[in-house]
C-alpha cells in the first residue's frame, strides 16, 4: 500500500477506459524514451506512518534544547499562548490556498486584515501588507520601495548596526542591479547619525536603520526624519515589534517605512524559519507596496467583505515590470502573530515588553557587578546586550553549556570585526529569576 493514494485497481481500470488509454505507461508516451527513468530513484522505500514517526523522533533526539537559552540576535524564545497553536491547527486555515477566491476565503482574509491593522498600530504607521518572508528580506523590499518612490534615485544608505544578515541580504538582493549601497559607520555601538546626515545628498532614495540594533542597543532617532525628508529621501526603520510594546514606534520617529520580523510575536525559533517579515508605511506609499495586501470592500448585498487588492502591482500582472517578484506571504505564520497580539492585547504587549526590559537589566546588572564581565558600550538597551568577557567566548561557551545554558551568541562568528571576547546575551520574559541567578553563578565559574 502507498500512503495517501486512494485508487483501487478497479478505479484505475475505469479511468484508463474513460481516458481511452490501455495502460499507465501510455500516459507518458509523449516523453522521449531516454528521459523516462528505467531504474528506481536512489531514495529509500516508503514507510508506514508509525515508522515515519519513529524515524522523526530519532532525528529530533539529535537536537539538544534543554539548556536554558539566552540566545537572540534575530530569533527569540518568548512565551507563546496555547491559543496560537490551537488556531493554527484549524485545517480550514492551514490547508487553504492563497485567498484569490475571496468569497470562500473570508476567514484567512479577515485574519490578514487584522494582522495588517495590528502591525500598523504597533509600528505607528498607516498601511501594511500581508507580510513578507522575513525581516531581512523585508528590509530589501523597503529599499526597493524607496528607490521606486523617489525619482532619479539610485542610492541606499544603511547603518552598520543593522543585523549582519540584513546587510548581507541587502547586498545579495542588489548585487546585479544599478543601485549603490553605502554603509554608515557606528559610533560606540549606535549609528553615527552625524555621518549619516553628512552623506545625505541627491540620489539617496532612503536610509535604513535598526532599533533595537544588532547589539540590542536602542537608537535615538530624534530629529533624523526631518533631515532625511529635507533631502527628499525616505526614512526606513527596522524594529523588533515586541519592543514596540514599550519603545517609541517608527511612526513616532517620523519614519516613512517600517520593517521587521514578527517571530517574537507567537512563533517558535524553529532553527530560523518560518518567521514573518512585515512592512508598514505612510499612506502615500501604498500603491507601490510589494506583496499581497488584504483590503476591505462590500459585496453585492452591501455586506462588509475582504479581498486581496491592488494586485495590479504584483508580479502576476506586471510581470517583468513588477517592482518585486514576491508571490507569497507567510500567511499561516502571520496568523500566529495575529492570535498572539489578540491574546495579549494592548496592555499585555506592554507588560511583556516591560518584563523583557526588567529581566534583561537584572541579568546585566548582576553580571557587571559580580563578575569580571564588562559592557561593550555604554548604551541603552531593550532585551539584549553585548558584554566583553575576560576570555574568548569560544572558551566559555562549552563550560556554560555543561552548566545547562546556551550563554549567548558569539558576535565574532557573525561579524569578524567584533572582538572574540564579545558575547551577545538576550533575556526574554520566558527566563526566570532562578535561571538568571544560576547563569550568574555558572558564568563566575566559567570565568575563574
Amino acid at each position: 500500500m502507498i500512503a495517501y493514494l486512494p485508487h483501487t485497481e478497479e478505479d484505475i481500470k475505469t479511468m484508463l477506459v474513460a481516458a481511452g488509454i490501455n495502460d499507465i505507461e501510455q500516459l507518458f508516451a509523449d516523453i522521449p524514451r531516454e528521459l523516462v527513468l528505467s531504474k528506481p530513484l536512489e531514495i529509500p522505500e516508503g514507510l508506514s506512518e508509525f515508522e515515519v514517526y519513529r524515524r522523526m523522533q530519532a532525528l529530533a533526539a539529535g537536537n539538544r534544547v534543554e539548556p536554558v537559552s539566552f540566545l537572540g540576535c534575530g530569533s527569540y524564545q518568548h512565551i507563546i499562548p496555547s491559543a496560537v497553536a490551537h488556531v493554527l491547527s484549524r485545517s480550514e486555515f492551514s490547508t487553504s490556498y492563497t485567498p484569490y477566491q475571496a468569497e470562500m476565503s473570508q476567514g484567512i482574509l479577515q485574519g490578514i486584515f487584522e494582522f495588517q491593522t495590528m502591525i500598523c498600530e504597533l509600528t505607528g504607521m498607516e498601511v501594511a501588507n500581508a507580510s513578507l518572508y522575513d525581516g531581512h528580506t523585508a528590509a530589501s523590499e523597503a529599499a526597493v520601495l524607496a528607490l521606486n518612490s523617489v525619482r532619479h534615485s539610485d542610492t541606499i544608505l544603511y547603518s552598520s548596526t543593522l543585523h549582519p544578515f540584513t546587510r548581507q541580504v541587502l547586498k545579495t538582493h542588489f548585487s546585479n542591479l544599478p543601485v549603490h549601497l553605502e554603509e554608515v559607520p557606528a559610533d560606540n555601538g549606535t549609528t553615527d547619525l552625524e555621518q549619516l546626515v553628512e552623506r545625505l545628498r541627491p540620489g539617496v532614495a532612503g536610509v535604513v536603520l535598526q532599533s533595537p540594533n544588532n547589539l540590542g542597543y536602542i537608537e535615538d532617532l530624534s530629529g533624523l526624519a526631518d533631515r532625511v525628508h529635507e533631502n527628499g529621501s525616505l526614512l526606513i526603520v527596522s524594529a523588533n515589534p515586541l519592543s514596540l510594546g514599550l519603545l517609541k514606534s517608527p511612526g513616532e520617529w517620523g519614519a516613512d517605512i517600517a520593517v521587521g520580523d514578527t517571530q517574537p510575536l507567537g512563533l517558535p525559533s524553529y532553527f530560523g524559519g518560518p518567521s514573518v517579515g512585515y512592512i508598514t508605511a505612510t499612506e502615500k506609499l501604498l500603491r507601490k507596496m510589494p506583496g499581497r495586501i488584504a483590503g476591505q470592500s462590500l459585496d453585492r448585498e452591501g455586506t462588509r467583505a475582504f479581498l486581496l487588492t491592488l494586485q495590479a502591482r504584483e508580479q502576476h500582472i506586471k510581470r517583468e515590470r513588477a517592482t518585486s517578484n514576491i508571490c507569497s506571504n507567510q500567511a499561516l505564520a502571520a496568523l500566529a502573530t495575529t492570535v498572539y497580539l489578540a491574546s495579549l492585547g494592548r496592555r499585555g504587549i506592554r507588560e511583556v515588553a516591560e518584563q523583557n526590559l526588567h529581566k534583561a537589566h537584572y541579568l546585566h546588572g548582576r553580571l557587571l557587578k559580580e563578575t569580571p564581565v564588562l559592557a561593550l558600550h555604554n548604551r541603552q538597551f531593550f532585551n539584549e546586550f553585548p558584554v566583553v568577557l575576560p576570555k574568548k567566548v569560544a572558551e566559555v561557551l562549552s563550560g556554560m553549556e555543561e552548566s545547562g545554558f546556551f550563554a549567548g551568541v558569539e558576535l565574532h562568528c557573525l561579524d569578524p570585526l567584533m572582538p572574540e571576547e564579545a558575547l551577545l546575551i538576550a533575556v526574554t520574559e520566558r527566563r526566570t529569576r532562578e535561571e538568571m541567578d544560576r547563569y550568574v553563578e555558572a558564568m563566575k565559574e566559567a570565568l575563574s
Partner: protein
Amino acid sequence: MSEKNNPLIFELSKPGRRGYRLPDLDVPAGELSSLLDPGLLREREPKLPEVSEIDVIRHYTALSRRNYGVDLGFYPLGSCTMKYNPKINEQVAAFEAFQQLHPLQPESCAQGTLALMHELLRQLSEVTGMSWGTLQPFAGAHGEFTGMKLFKACFQKRGESGRTKVLVPDSAHGTNPASAHLAGFEVVEVHSDSRGLVSLESLKEHLDETLAGIMMTNPNTLGLFEEDILEISRAIHDVGGLLYYDGANLNAIVGKVRPGDMGFDVVHLNLHKTFSTPHGGGGPGCGPVLVSETLLPFLPVPDVVKRGDGYHLENNRPDSIGRLSGFYGNVAVMVRAYAYLLAMGRDGLARVGELAVLNANYLKERLKDSYELPYDRLCKHEFVLSARGLKEKLGVTALDVAKRLLDFGIHPPTVYFPLIVQEALMIEPTETESLEVLDRFVQVMKTIAREAAESPETLKQAPTSTPVRRIDEVLAARKPIVRWHPEEQS
C-alpha cells in the same frame, strides 16, 4: 451596511479585558526612567484589542469556518498541486526538539535538524537529477530569484557579462520574468506554437552570445510536456547558455522523469506543492534550488555539509552569491516535506506522477464535451479548458463558472492563466483525489454548463451560498482600506 454578525477582533474589544496571563515579574522592577530615556518610550498606545481568551478562540474558530481548505474538499487549482497534507507531518513538526532549536545554537546541539536538512537535500537532488542545492529560498519566486542570480554569477565568473537575455515562454507564470528582471536580466518572450509548446523557430531567433538562457517549466502551464526539451537544452547549451527549471509542475513527472536528465542547470522546487506541505493560506512555503555541477560554487551560504564527525553549516564558499535569507530557510516546512518523502519513498513517488497524470487525463476526457479544450491531446497533471465559447454565445465567462462552483462547495480551478488561452480554466486534480471526487466534479461542471445555456443568470449571480457574495473589486482598488480604524467603532 450589514455586517452579518461578523465582527473584527477590534470590534469585540472592551477596555480592561485581557486574553492571556503572564507570569508575574520575578525580578525587581526599577523605575523605567532609570533604565531608559523617556524620549525613547512610545507615547501613543497601540490600539490592539482587549478581549478575553474565549473571545479569541471563538473569533478565530468562527473565521476558520468561513474558509475552505483541502481538508474540506476538492481544490483543483492548476499549477498549485493542492494535494492532501498528511497529518503525521504536523505531528512530527510539532516536536519541541524541532521547535525550540535556535538557529545560532552550537552545531553539536542541532545535529538532528542539520541531518534532516542534509538528507532532504540529498533526496531532492536525486529526485531532480541534480548535484546539490540550497534549502534557503522561502518560496518558489524566491527560488527563481536565486536561480537567476546563479546564472549571473556563473557568467560573471566566466567573464561573459554580455549575456544579458533570458528567454521566457509566453505561457510562463508572472514570477518568471519578474525574477529574471530583478537579477538584472533582460526578458525576451518566446512564443508557443500551435501545439501549445515552445516554438523552436521562435527560440532559434535568439541563439547568440547575448543569451544567458531560458526559464521553463516542463510540463508547461498548459499541462503539456515539452517534447522538444532535449533539442532545446542542446541548442541553449551549444551557445553557452543555461537552462532554468520552474518546478511548479514537477508533480506530473516526479519519480518518472528528472529535470537534470532533460538538461536543466538549475531547478527550483515548491515543497508546498509537490511535497505535500500545507499552503497555509498563502505561506509559509519553501522553494529549494538544486543545481548541476557547473553551478555548485555559486550556491548561497550557508551550505549544509556532512563531515566525519557530523553535520555542519558551511560559509566558506568564495564564489557564493551570498545570503538570501536571515537564517537557513523555512525549516518547519522542510521537516514536513522530509516526513512526506519518508512515507512515499521511491515507489510512492513514482506512483504520484502516474496517478496525478491519470486523474488529469480522466477529467479532461470527461469534460471536453461540455467545455472547449484548446489542446485536445494527452496532457500531464493538469489541463486547460476555455470558456471562450460560453462567453461568445452566452455571455458567461470563466469567472462566472468559477463563482458558481463555489455554490457547490468546490474550489474553482485557476482562472485566466495561462494568458495564452482566453477565458482559461486550469484544472489540476492531483493524485490524492479519488474517482468519486472526480466524478462529482464532472457532474457539477456539466450542471454549470447546462445552467450557462438555460439560465445564465444563475452563474452571474453566483455565489449565493458562501458567507459573502461577489465583492466589489473596483471599489477596493479605488479607495483602498487596508486596516481597521478606531474611529469606525460604533
